[in-house]
Each structure stands twice: as structure tokens, then as C-alpha cells.
């Protein structure tokens, strides 16, 4: 047993988080910033923050993650980090030549009260920001929210670029939420099939799933360009995918440039994808392409064909709120029973939403926001499940409790493919279902007696 110190009895815990189902804001801000073309994320804090976030993202994406730091020492912590940041901005533009520096704060710079807008102003006055180059900033204190909040805050900071002119551009903004580069590609493909002209921000496709060419480009071809970000103010509307990841930015843009927005779930699974496609169709005034209808039919076909394997299977799931909400809905579509549901991110509305989704079902659901994997594990010990859906850290629970694990979410440190194969949309639904069935049926084959072992399933 790896987690041998986790007891079955659940006691009250008020102070200690054990095996978190979240991490801190800045890593989300860093990931979001990588979705701007030519952008260098900058961490305003101690070196360690930047180093840890780069390492975490590198291990997940298996791609180079460049980001710089203000390298605080004790002196900067006492006297403030302005001098470090000004020097940093100057060095970054001289050495790395990005188009944009996207600064996020840390618990250190937030606790001492560094004021990013004021420091940026100072940098401008001192001529440290070259002509045609940009600096944006997001406040991302690690002691609030989670990595999801940090992602959301940096996406909101991107709205700073938006400009409203007299002419609408005829495009729809899509804020995809914290999904994989492959998912962003897939969302764009679906929009294209529907005939909707879009601006996606942020967009890490082509940045964090790039090819090997023999040449290293610090700023790869992908990412939302500054021109596109400016133009978001002239779009006909914004589709924000995920209340936690994307809604703030969409609402800020609405306020600033009067671009109306609609907040949807991230299109994981059949129904959330249906709502996404239906909304796209409506806002653009077009009909859905035959190709998407065909893909939808394939997903419905596969889930019908395999209902006997998924029906009433119990699932434990941990992940980010927007992910988990959509996944719980998909599991219900498959006839599965998500009995234990945890997110590390705070927010009572998460619990409310999960309860709404499961209210007419004939099973009890344990749900907790600001929960941790220790609690999830204890729930599983008390009521075993057939499948665990979690990031890579779930493998310790999966091994101890002998439960199949679907790796899904962030971070995935020990398997490949998430960068390249989407789980959003109908195609992504097929992939999720294929993976779930593979896990369940491998388990059935493993556990069947010789007599009951079957060729055809």
C-alpha cells in the first residue's frame, strides 16, 4: 500500500489539506499567457515559483516552457519588487525580444503589496517598453482560489488589449477555458465546420503541441496574436466555455466593449457539445454542418452500443470545476453513477451544480468543493467504485484500491496523448468513451474466471 496512512474513518479536518486536488494561481496564469503569440510569461516573485511552474507545465506538455522571474531576494521582499521588475522588463525585451510580457503576481509580491499597474506605468515612463511591445499584468495571489482562478485572471487581463471601433468584425470570440492545445484545435475545427469565424483566446495550439524540426523557436507560430486580441472588442459576441475559467473575461469584455457573452459548459461529452454547437449555430445564424451531425451520430451510436458496459458503473472523479461538471453530465448520459465528486477549487456553486445534475438519480452523491484527494480516497474506501477519473496523482489511489484510472485533467505526468488528441466535442467524446470502455473491459477480462472469459464483448 502506498497511501497506507489514509484511514477509512473520516474525521473532521479544518486546517490541513492532504493530497490536494488543486494547485496555486500563478501556474494557471502562466499557462494562459502561453496562449498569446510571442508572449513571455513573467512571474513576479521568488525564483522558485517560476521554476516550479515551468517544471509542472513542462512535465505535462513535454514541451519547452519559457518564462522569466523577478528573482526576489530578501532585500526585494523588504523594499518592494519594483526595481527587480523594471530591470526584468528591460532585460527581457533586450534578450528574448517577445511581443508581450504577461506578468502575474505571487503570494510573495501580493503580500508585500506590489502594485503592478503602477510599476507598468513607471516602466513606460522610463522607456523600458519598446515601441510596439506590450506588458500586461494579472493579480494572482496563491492564497485565493486555485490554478483555475489564476488562469481566469490572466485571460481577463488579455481583455486589456480589446479595442472597440465603429465596425464589427463579424467574428465570435471563443474563450476555451483551461483545456489542452488539442482541445483548442478541435473547438476551432468545429467552429470552422459550422461556418463561424472565430477569435480564440487564449490559444495554446501550435505552442504546446508543436513539431520537432531541428530548430528551437522560443515563440512558436501558434497563439492568439495581438491584432486578434485587439479585435475581440469588435466581435459580435463571446462564447465563454466554463464558468470558472472563462466567464470573468467574457463579462469584462462585455462591460468594456459591449460585446455580449454567453457562458457555456466546456463541451466535454454529448450534451455540453450539443449546447455549444447549438449556441454557435444560433449566434452565427447558420445551420449545423452535415459533418458535425455525422460525428454526433457516431458518438450516440457508440454509447448506445456499449450501454451494457457503462450502465450503473460507479465512478469517483476529481478535477477542476468546469471539467468535472461537464464530465459528470457525460457520465450520467452513459448511465454511469458518479458517486464521489471532488474539486480542489473553492466554490459552493460547484456543489450545487453537481447536486442539480444528479438530483433525480437513484444514487447518493458525495460532493465537495475545496476538497482533496485524501477525502476522495476515504470516500472510495467506504463506497468502492468501478472507475476513478483524476489527474496522474490518482494513480496512487487507483493502485491501492485496485480501481481502473482514467487520467484526465491537469497534470498528466505519466501518459501521452492529451496534447494531441482532444476530449472536447463529439470526436473527443468518442475518445473519452473509448478510453472508459477500454479500462472497464480490460478489468472485466482480467477479473473473469477461465470459464467466464469471453472472446466477444
Amino acid at each position, binding site marked *: 500500500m502506498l497511501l497506507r496512512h489514509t484511514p477509512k474513518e473520516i474525521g473532521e479536518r479544518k486546517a490541513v489539506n492532504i493530497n490536494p486536488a488543486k494547485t496555486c494561481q500563478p501556474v494557471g496564469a502562466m499557462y494562459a499567457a502561453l496562449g498569446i503569440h510571442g508572449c513571455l510569461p513573467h512571474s513576479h516573485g521568488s525564483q522558485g515559483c517560476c521554476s516550479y511552474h515551468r517544471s509542472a507545465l513542462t512535465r505535462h506538455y513535454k514541451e519547452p516552457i519559457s518564462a522569466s522571474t523577478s528573482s526576489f531576494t530578501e532585500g526585494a521582499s523588504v523594499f518592494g519588487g519594483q526595481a527587480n521588475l523594471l530591470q526584468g522588463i528591460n532585460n527581457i525585451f533586450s534578450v*528574448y525580444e517577445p511581443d508581450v510580457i504577461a506578468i502575474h503576481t505571487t503570494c510573495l509580491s501580493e503580500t508585500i503589496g506590489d502594485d503592478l499597474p503602477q510599476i507598468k506605468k513607471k516602466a513606460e515612463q522610463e522607456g523600458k517598453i519598446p515601441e510596439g511591445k506590450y506588458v500586461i499584468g494579472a493579480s494572482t495571489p496563491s*492564497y485565493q482560489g486555485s490554478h483555475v482562478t489564476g488562469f481566469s485572471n490572466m485571460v481577463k487581463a488579455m481583455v486589456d488589449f480589446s479595442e472597440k471601433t465603429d465596425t464589427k468584425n463579424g467574428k465570435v470570440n471563443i474563450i476555451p477555458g483551461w483545456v489542452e492545445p488539442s482541445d483548442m484545435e478541435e473547438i476551432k475545427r468545429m467552429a470552422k465546420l459550422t461556418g463561424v469565424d472565430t477569435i480564440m483566446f487564449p490559444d495554446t495550439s501550435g505552442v504546446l503541441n508543436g513539431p520537432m524540426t531541428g530548430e528551437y523557436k522560443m515563440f512558436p507560430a501558434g497563439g492568439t496574436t495581438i491584432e486578434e486580441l485587439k479585435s475581440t472588442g469588435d466581435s459580435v459576441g463571446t462564447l465563454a466555455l466554463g464558468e470558472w475559467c472563462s466567464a470573468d473575461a467574457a463579462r469584462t469584455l462585455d462591460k468594456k466593449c459591449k460585446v455580449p457573452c454567453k457562458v457555456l459548459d466546456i463541451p466535454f461529452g454529448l450534451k455540453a457539445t450539443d449546447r455549444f454547437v447549438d449556441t454557435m449555430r444560433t449566434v452565427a445564424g447558420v445551420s449545423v454542418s452535415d459533418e458535425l451531425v455525422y460525428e454526433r451520430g457516431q458518438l450516440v451510436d457508440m454509447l448506445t452500443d456499449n450501454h451494457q458496459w457503462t450502465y450503473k458503473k460507479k465512478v469517483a472523479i476529481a478535477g477542476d470545476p468546469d471539467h468535472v461538471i461537464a464530465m459528470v453530465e457525460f457520465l450520467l448520459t452513459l448511465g454511469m453513477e458518479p458517486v464521489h465528486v471532488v474539486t480542489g477549487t473553492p466554490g459552493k456553486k460547484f456543489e450545487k451544480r453537481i447536486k442539480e445534475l444528479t438530483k433525480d438519480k437513484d444514487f447518493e452523491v458525495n460532493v465537495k468543493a475545496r476538497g482533496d484527494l485524501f477525502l476522495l480516497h476515504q470516500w472510495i474506501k467506504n463506497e468502492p467504485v468501478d472507475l476513478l477519473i483524476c489527474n496522474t496523482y490518482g494513480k496512487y489511489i487507483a493502485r491501492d484500491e485496485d480501481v481502473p484510472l482514467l487520467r484526465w485533467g491537469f497534470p498528466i505526468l505519466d501518459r501521452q496523448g492529451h496534447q494531441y488528441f482532444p476530449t472536447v466535442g463529439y470526436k473527443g467524446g468518442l475518445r473519452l468513451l473509448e478510453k472508459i470502455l477500454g479500462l472497464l473491459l480490460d478489468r472485466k477480462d482480467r477479473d473473469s474466471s477461465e470459464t467466464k472469459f469471453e472472446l466477444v464483448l
Partner: protein
Amino acid sequence: MATSTASKKVQWTPTDVKAELLKKYPPKVARKRAKQIMINEAADGGSSSQITENVRTIPGIITMRGCTYAGCNGVLMGPTRDIVNLVHGPIGCGFYAWLTRRNQTDAGPDGENYIPYCISTDMQEQDIIFGGEKKLALAIQEIYDIMHPKSIAVFSTCPVGLIGDDVHAVAKSMTEKLGDCNVFAFSCEGYKGVSQSAGHHIANNQVYRHVIGENDEPVKGEYKVNLLGEYNIGGDAFEIDRILEKCGITLTLTFSGNATYDQFATAHQADLSMVMCHRSVNYIADMLETSFGIPWIKVNFIGANSTAKSLRKIAAYFEDQKLIDRVEEVICEEMLDVETAARDVRGRTEGKTAMLFVGGSRAHHYIELFNELGMKILSSGYEFGHRDDYEGRQVLPTLKVDADSRNIEEIEVEPDEKRYKPRKSEEQLAALEKSGVKFKEYEGLAPDMEENTLIIDDLNQYEAEKLVELMKPDLFCAGIKEKFSIMKMGVPMKMLHNYDSGGPYAGFKGAANFYYEIDRLLSSNVRENLKAPWQENPELTGAYVWE
């Protein structure tokens, strides 16, 4: 291979390369970096050059370095298996240090192993505003109630120092309250010092203060030694355990790969300390000597020859023919497989070039393994080394202590009233020195680098890419953050912080493992696959002839 040897010849002189590395920097940055890039002048054992090190990283420059907390919790204390590591701070710091360094552990017969757990006070805004001491005390109580560990170590993250939580007072009162659990704390806030190195020092201090010498129950066994600065990445410490056991040497403590509380608590009973990673543990080696009379020697279990040399040193120290003979037998037996492996791969590794930028000792230790493969090190350096790690301990009296280092506590150690017992007399030590067993000595990296190679401190991303572009090494060794940019350039990359997926590389079996791993990397067909056929021959010449 598409790239011919001729095209790889290094045409740049080291002075040219250095100038190229500095060319793009703003003048102030260039001046500072120039002092951290040294052209090695002497290959004959001593170095006449001087490098600037252990200084602040320049803001905005993409450094490989981490922070003091990373050095203290992530590196030094993390690998211990039965002390609960409680991170006092917002969730991130605990999360990132959770199982990411590949320190292996074995729960042993007692079954205590907290390595798979990430335990944090997960500080929220109200804790930052109103202080986190109460929450910390409650967290300690909750862990104790759930897990009943014999010890809980508390690690302070940046905001804790800023808001002034007295973690040491909380730890002390909880130790008294709990009665059978030693709670102690580290003020290892990330902003202290200039790199992980400060965290090592802080860890040494607190382990000495709170754990070393806590258990006087006699440790059984012959030839008792401490192995300091070995973190069991990829199972290195397990391989060293195997070899020492085979020789009949008793390991009192491995600091800290798979270590236990009791190993630390009984370390004062050892008769010799062996320093593996000089940078991270030289402090405690000195303290053990001053306090308890245990001399220390520098060892290196990376590389088969270094392993053999280190074993001979230990045997010579104990001056016991039985041990001396046993060690020779073991070396003889173990070297058979090592030599077979070396013969297997040397045809493909001989003359190949590598660059090494790791840690505060590894860039040096691994030179030995590359020597065994007949490879040449073009450039190397540490992420957080000090001048003694580069140039040898003889420079210690001349080191200037700057403001950042002064902030890190230097603890005064006195001989223990009851337990101080010199393991050897002055005469014995002098005789051993004369016969070649050097005490408290470390020669550093520079003497093992060839003349006119580049030694670079705190190498950054820009310089790493430039070096690869200009000097085209066959292999680049650094960490996870550097890995994929180097690989995109078509150059094989080996992580030497946590070995990617491999290991062990220590000891004899580890050496053979490493030979095969490097052979795999050098023989990989990465470069062959880079271009598609139509990229190799883009011109369309005539019509396609169907057969």
C-alpha cells in the same frame, strides 16, 4: 548520421564563445555574467582562474535556479520517509514538491512512509491577514491524530516570513503538547538567499539542532559510517546500500535518501562521515566532527572508478586488513559486469562530447562517468554551487560573505560535553593524510575539467541555446526545464537532476546502466528523422515514373 564529425569540430575558441554568449546582453548584465563564465586555465590539478558564484540571479534572465524552500524541502528533507513534511503556506509550494523528484523509498518493516503524501496548511487570504499560527498548530494536531508520526517537520513558504508567523514557537509548543512527536520547523522562505543552496544550509542547521544525537541507543554493526548528501534519486542510495552491505560496512545514516528519523537521531554514533554532495551537506559534516569527533571524507559513488576509489578510502580509514581485503574482493567482482558494459558501448561513445549543467555537485560527479565512456566535456557548471565547489575548499578562507549569504544563519557548534570522542588521534589522522586519505578536503570541479573549457555558473536558457548552437555537443545534460528546448534542436538531452525515467546511476550497477543509457541517447536516430523526403530533395525533377 546526417551530421558528420567534420561539421562538429569546434571552431570557436573559448574566448570567442564567451564573447558570443555576452553579446546580446545589456551592458550591466554582460558585465555581471562575464564574471560567472570562466575559461578553465589549468588542467594540472590546480586552477588559477576565479569564478563569481552564489550571487543573485539577474531579474528577467531565465534561470535554471529554484528557491530556498525547494532546496530545503524539495531536495534535502523530502526524501526522508517517516517524518511528515508539513508545508506552511498557500497550496502551490507543497503541490510542486509532491513526488516530482523521483526519490525512491521503501516503507520497511515498520511500514512508515509519508512520501506519497502532500500535506499543507493551504493558507487562505484570512490566514495571511490574521496570521497563520493557530491554523498551523491545528494542522499539526490533525496530522498527529490521523497518522501518529514520530516527527513532523514544518516548512515556511514566502508569505509566512512576511506576516511573521513564529513557526518555531508553534513547533516547540506542539512538541510539548503531543509528547511523543518531535515537531520542528524550517524558516526556508523562498526569497532567502539566492538559490536552493540557502535552503540546504537551513536544513542542515535544523536537522542538527532538533534530530541529530536524539537517540543514544547503540547502533549495532562494524565500520559505522554516515553517507551525507545522497538523495536516492532513481534508487541510487539503494545501489550504494547494496555495495556497502556487501563490503560489511554499516550505514548509520543516509542523508536523506529513504532515511528515517532514527537514522538521523543516531548519526552521532558513526565513526566516519562520507560527503557525497559537498554543496548541500558540508555544513552538517563539519558539525558532526566538531560536536562528536567524527571526521569526514569526500566520496563519489558516481562512476565505477570513483566508487572503487571511495570504497578504498573507507577501508584505508578503518585500517583493518579484513575490510581492506573484502573491499578489494567486492571491487574485483563488481567490475566484471562494468567492464563488459564499457566494452559494449565504448566504440560508439569514445570521442563524443557533452555539456553538464547540474546542481551543486552533480556536474562534477558525472564527469567521471563520461570519462569512463571516453567522452569529452566541452563545458560545465553548477546551478547553485559556491566557489569551493568549483575551485576546491582551499579557497574557503578567501570567500567574501555578501548580504544574501549573511542572512542565512551560521550556527556555532561546540564539542558535546558527554559524547565528543575523537575517532582518531591527531597522529593517526596525520598518518592517514600522508597515506592519501584526505580529510575535510574537496578539490572541486575545475581541476577535472580540461584546459580551455568553459565553466559557467548559473547558466541560463539563452546561454544554453547559444552554447549548443555554437559548439554542437553530442549530448546536453541539465534538468526538466532545459530538456525540451535542447531536444527541439535535435540534440539528445539527459536529465541529471532526476534522470528522466532511468537510474540508478550510482555504484557499479549504476555505472553500467548509465553507459547503456548514454549509448542509447547517442545512437538515437533523432537527427535522421528530422527531415521528410520532400524536404531533403525539394526540387521536382521530371515526371514521376510509375513502375
